[in-house]
């Protein structure tokens, strides 16, 4: 067992979290959220992107009581708050974006009114630029 020590002090990267799976059918939505939350402590730039069925993750009115499963929606609220904190704190060099792809949203009959949190809606072409300039992409 070799424990590696990374030099991360002073390094600033852009990490994109690419959420493409529907919630509850699989755990990816929940576990990727856990990793987004942890990353806040590292003060990196982050794009939290919802594409394909990932857009269903932030649908309003989720109620998992009948499934005995934990509902993720409140956790997205925490992410929204982290983003607001970063936006307002001028001493913090941390830019978070919460992005929904327009094409994915529309194919699923959704509008921004259907979402629990505030999002930036980008076209495929605009999102392609965001992905292209990411340093690391973590899929869910």
């Amino acid at each position: 067992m070799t424990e590696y020590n990374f030099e991360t002090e002073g390094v600033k990267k852009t990490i994109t979290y690419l959420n493409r799976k529907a919630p509850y059918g699989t755990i990816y939505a929940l576990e990727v959220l856990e990793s987004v939350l942890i990353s806040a402590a590292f003060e990196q730039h982050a794009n939290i992107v919802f594409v394909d069925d990932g857009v269903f993750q932030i649908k309003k009115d989720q109620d998992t009581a009948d499934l005995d499963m934990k509902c993720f929606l409140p956790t997205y609220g925490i992410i929204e708050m982290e983003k607001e904190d970063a936006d307002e704190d001028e001493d913090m060099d941390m830019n978070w974006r919460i992005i929904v792809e327009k094409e994915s949203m529309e194919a699923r009959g959704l509008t921004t009114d259907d979402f629990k949190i505030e999002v930036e809606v980008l076209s495929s072409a605009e999102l392609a630029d965001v992905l292209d300039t990411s340093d690391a992409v973590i899929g869910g």
Partner: protein
Amino acid sequence: MKFGILINEGPFTHQASDTAYKFVVAALEKGHEVPRVFFYYDGVYNANKLSAPQADDRNVVKRWSDLAADKGVDLVVCIAAGLRRGIVEDNLMDGFRISGLGQLTEAAIGTDRLMMFGD
């Protein structure tokens, strides 16, 4: 160049762990560094020391363990993902260690490329 590796699926059921292993071996052969492999989601099952595949099949768990011993690759199992799936110190294969999700963020920040393998 430094590669960080993220593995999201367990052994045998998905090819993810196989492809990741082949990638890591090829990267090391080319003189690149692979400081850390992070096991997340069902990927934590790659560290189950009780896995005993058939004699004519590859031994996925042992193969990772040997790589840690031979090449000093840091194999980290996510503690939260491991707890819910029952991969804990009791059944952890040699060469793996259990730690937090921050170790994945570190690998994303501290390597030149983060490679993800999963479903």
